[in-house]
């Protein structure tokens, strides 16, 4: 098992290194000169050369990359070519907003998926179970941003119950923070919950056929009791894996939902930086998102080994 963890860790580290090189090269081959973008078309050649030197983009690519990475591991993502501000602190701020959104979305997804998925599994031969399966299919087909638009229309425009967008930091006014988070988190979470419902259903359906559940029934437990005490924990193993992998989907889904609800998260920062051709900032955000995805995969992989002892042998 130690060998497996060691091997996985090595693969993770190499993946992060390769991914960072890929992101760096991708941005480096970009047509257009960041100095020119920053200064405009009327800049003199001397000023351009000076700015290039200032940005450090007149050096060899390997030096640039190593320098960038040396900064990144200490949290220094460099200075924006456009605003000349430090990228790191802003990145941390924005990431905070996105993580709140993703976390709340995950909670909504679980609240939807666990009861509905279990119910659909227990009733899988009845009309009510089929109805939930059908609804989850429909939920999967609705893009998160569409769900967001519809929720805004109902809860913000028609019934005026919740704000249609904007962000209040939790330490400023917690009530407003929660109110503002409900709609974005729901649009992200309901769709993800529909996806998750299908996995919960399938996992519970699998455990329903297990011998130990029949034994529990034979001991006199009612079907619901047997499922709660013995079934759900076993069904949790595959669901946890899917949940982990869905984190990545949620992180990317957040990019779009942030745009709908005007939230100052990492996604809107990415889109704004692309629009402003603020390349170093784009590079930093993409790196953070990709490393987050790799990290989630890595952790899920390790968790899997811990949860399921059968995997430890391989």
């Amino acid at each position, binding site marked *: 098992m130690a060998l497996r963890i060691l091997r996985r860790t090595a693969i993770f580290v190499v993946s992060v290194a390769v991914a960072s090189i890929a992101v760096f090269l991708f*941005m480096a081959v970009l047509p257009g000169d960041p100095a020119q973008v920053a200064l405009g078309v009327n800049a003199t050649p001397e000023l351009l050369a000076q700015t290039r030197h200032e940005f450090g983009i007149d050096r060899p690519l390997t030096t640039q990359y190593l320098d960038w990475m040396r900064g990144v591991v200490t949290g220094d993502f460099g200075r924006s070519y456009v605003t000349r501000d430090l990228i790191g602190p802003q990145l941390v701020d924005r990431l905070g907003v996105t993580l709140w959104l993703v976390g709340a979305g995950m909670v909504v997804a679980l609240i939807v998926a666990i009861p509905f998925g279990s119910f659909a599994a227990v009733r899988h031969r009845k009309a009510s179970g089929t109805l939930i399966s059908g609804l989850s*299919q429909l939920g999967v*087909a609705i*893009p998160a941003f569409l769900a967001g638009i519809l929720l*805004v229309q109902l809860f913000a425009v028609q019934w005026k119950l919740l704000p249609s967008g904007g962000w209040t930091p939790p330490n400023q006014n917690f009530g407003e923070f929660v109110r503002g988070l409900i709609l974005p988190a729901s649009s992200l979470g309901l769709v993800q919950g529909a996806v998750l419902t299908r996995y919960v259903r399938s996992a519970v359906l699998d455990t329903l056929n297990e011998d130990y559940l029949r034994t529990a029934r034979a001991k006199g437990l009612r079907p619901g009791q047997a499922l709660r005490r013995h079934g759900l924990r076993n069904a949790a193993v595959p669901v946890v894996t899917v949940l982990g992998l869905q984190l990545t989907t949620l992180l990317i889904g957040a990019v779009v939902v942030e745009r709908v609800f005007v939230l100052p998260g990492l996604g809107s920062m990415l*889109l704004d930086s692309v629009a402003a051709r603020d*390349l170093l900032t784009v590079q930093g955000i993409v790196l953070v998102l990709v490393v987050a*995805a790799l990290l989630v*995969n890595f952790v899920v992989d390790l968790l899997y080994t811990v949860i399921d002892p059968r995997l430890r042998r391989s």
Partner: protein
Amino acid sequence: MVTTETRRRTPTLVVGTILVVLVVLAALVSFIWTPHDALRVDASIRLMGPSGDYLLGTDKFGRDMVSQIMVGARTTLYVGIVAVGVAALIGTPLGILAGMTRWLGEFIMRVNDLVLAFPALLLAIMFGAVFGASTLTAMIAIGIATVPSFARIARSGTLQVMSTEYVLAARAAGRRGLRIAVRHVLPNISGLLIVQGSVSFAIAVLSEAALSFLGFGTRPPTPSWGRMLQESQELLAVQPRLALVPGVAIAIAVLGFNLLGDGLRDRLDPKLAGRR
């Protein structure tokens, strides 16, 4: 053989097929006929509600919604076909190769995991930043992001086929790798690939809609369901219809391809019927 079990589950396949055919028909018919010119801007009839002449009304530029949805179906299918095509053409051979070799296979799957860390949307935004936003960059980005799914499914299918006795017999008869791949592996995993294709198609449609919504997909004036949604956002309070119409169209297409994929999977493997 169709057992009672599969026949009972066939609704998925039937509904999926109907929805997909609906979208394909809308796209095909739009080449020869639409109720109005989908691109004609006419300020005098802007934001008209549904009527006999304009069944779903007009948008903020006075363009007919029905015609736009029909022409938009083309964009949707176009994106799906190219994205899934790119993914299948690259992913399938890589997956088979990974299933038939040891060290190379391990390497391919590691690279695969790496690509998996770049979701379609992120890749498309990066491509958009470098090459400029267009339907083509969106399609290629979505396609590349889908390669890992195909490679994975092709590899797991290949591993299964390679352990069968007929492959053993073929190897005993001195058949070489490429020949085994083409004669035995590919035909046996084609069902899996078709299912994956249908599911990936649904994901591609969703991604294109999201990208167009963000302004990284189809450029105006080409009609696209995602962009119709984006254009509707400012008028949401007064005209929710503008968002509902393209929203329903997207849901129909995605639901159709998802159900089609599920239905096909159940047909291929009745044991799995109704599971996922």
